[in-house]
């Protein structure tokens, strides 16, 4: 199901959370709302879900205006950042909740509910936890139960608020890939909010970069990375070096650099301040005369670096 967001604005007292947001999300797409905290991404997600009402603008699901429709009639699956599992219910009851709350007539029989819940728990690979309470689960397990609970009512749209934010780095990576795989299988129109560009890059089909209540750029991960529409997008999507030259300044990423021991060829000089191994790459931090900002270079290990030490003089040129 496609989602059309047109001219949505929202204020919280004097604070402008969203300003004239327009966004089209295709059916079956996985979209990331990416931006720093306070940029309005969570507010936008909550407006799509119906948890907040926009001051102006419309939300249209598959040609149908749902702006005035109550949360419970929008049929969206929502996964909260801190999961919001019902703490006094077992995992099974949590997942069954949506089915049991259906009005009589639409409500499946207990046997059917039992079957569906176990199917969902199987899908998130946690069937063996059915009788546990949320407090007995790890963060990653809670996250997957929250997802199973959201999917139980067969939503047409899946919304996730910082789905991996509260997890440690390793679990986060695993779950991220798992979610991307799951999306490939289920093909549910999904929107997730994140402040982590790496996460957006790795999981999303398209990235919506937001800042201060407006959309800075919409595009595929490679589009936003390679052709950033603004300085903000450039800086937000990765580390950036700023080098002062006569006319102004040059921006380049740490891997967009050529290093040499020899001067000449328009190369700038810098003094090695730090050397850090990063797996396949090495990060070298350079002090450059005439500016306080340091320049970082991430380059492949090679002969040049073999006997490099702090305080050495190096020459570099940005390759943009």
């Amino acid at each position, binding site marked *: 199901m496609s989602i059309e967001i047109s001219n949505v604005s929202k204020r919280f007292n004097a604070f402008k959370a969203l300003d004239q947001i327009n966004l089209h999300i295709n059916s079956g797409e996985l979209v990331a709302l990416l931006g720093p905290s306070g940029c309005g991404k969570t507010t936008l997600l909550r407006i799509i*879900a119906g*948890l907040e009402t926009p001051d102006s603008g419309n939300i249209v699901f598959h040609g149908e205006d749902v702006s005035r429709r109550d*949360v*419970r009639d929008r049929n*969206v*699956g*929502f996964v*909260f950042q*801190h999961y*919001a*599992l*019902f*703490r*006094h219910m077992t995992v099974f009851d949590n997942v069954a*909740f*949506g089915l049991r*709350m*259906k009005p009589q007539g639409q409500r499946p029989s207990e046997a059917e509910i039992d079957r569906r819940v176990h199917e969902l728990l199987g899908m998130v690979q946690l069937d063996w936890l059915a009788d546990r309470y*949320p*407090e007995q689960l790890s963060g990653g397990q809670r996250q997957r139960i929250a997802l199973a*609970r*959201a999917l*139980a*009512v067969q939503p047409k749209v899946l919304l996730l608020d910082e789905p991996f934010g509260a997890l440690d780095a390793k679990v986060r990576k695993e779950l991220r890939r798992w979610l991307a795989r799951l999306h490939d299988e289920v093909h549910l129109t999904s929107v997730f909010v994140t402040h982590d560009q790496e996460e957006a890059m790795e999981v999303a089909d398209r990235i919506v970069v937001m800042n201060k209540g407006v959309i800075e750029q919409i595009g595929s991960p490679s589009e936003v990375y390679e052709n950033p529409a603004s300085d903000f997008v450039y800086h937000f999507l990765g580390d950036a070096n700023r080098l002062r030259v006569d006319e102004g300044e040059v921006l380049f990423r740490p891997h967009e650099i050529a290093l040499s021991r020899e001067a000449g060829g328009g190369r700038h000089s810098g003094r090695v301040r730090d050397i850090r191994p990063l797996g396949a790459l090495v990060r070298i931090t350079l002090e450059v005369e005439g500016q306080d900002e340091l320049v970082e270079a991430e380059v492949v290990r090679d002969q040049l670096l073999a006997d490099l030490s702090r305080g050495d003089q190096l020459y570099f040129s940005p390759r943009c």
Partner: protein
Amino acid sequence: MTSTTLTAGDISAARRGSPAGRILLILGAYLAFALFLLLPLLVVLSEALKLGLGTFFSALLEADAISALKLTLLAVGISVPLNLVFGVAAAWCVSKYEFRGKSILVTLIDLPFSVSPVIAGLIYVLLFGAQGFFGEVLEKYDIQIIFALPGIVLATIFVTVPFVARELIPLMQEQGSQEEEAARLLGASGWQMFWHVTLPNIKWGLIYGVVLCTARAMGEFGAVSVVSGHIRGYTNTLPLHVEILYNEYNHVAAFSVASLLLGLALIILLLKQWSESRINRLRHTAEEE
């Protein structure tokens, strides 16, 4: 988690202090407890039983005492459920919504704690008494509020309003409204959400608040004394009955009835202890998250 480790730290810090000082403090606490709490309780019981069990029970089974007990239970039975509904509603408003005048509402809920109960009783006399603000209208329709059950219930409600709300507001604020939002998103109606999600989460806090409210409602003297009119057998609650007996130099009967109140208080204390331990357990698991 943090607060548990902190208290553990505090305890060990206290243990490291001089043992003599510690013993002195503990002894002081026990002494104060014995002197101000235990001794009066024992005096009440011993005075009540001074002339034997026969006199004790005859004081309890006397018609006026029975009617006072009935009236007390009736007043409690009306005012506590009303306060329960009001308390839950108020706590819900304050913890789940942002609105203008919220801090004023919270302050107003606390008002009965700061206003003397006698003043509270007087307010009702001034409002509903024969010479009061609504006096004429009430007289016209022959409605008796002051010196009757409605007045006693009103006064009791006024004095006990804060207990349920005060207990629930911090609990509900701590829990936030995400579980409720999740329930709505999963298709629950307002009532289903309250019944299946909110109520189980606040259950123990609610029981605790109700227990405190009941205790206060049963023992209320000042406000009820002003509006009741002390009509024996009609508008006397247990605490008022005790006072009357005492003023008539009928000490044994007064203390007998007092020990009845005491017994009810002890039951409530046990209930309180039990619900409190359940809340602490809930808090504990919440902190571990």
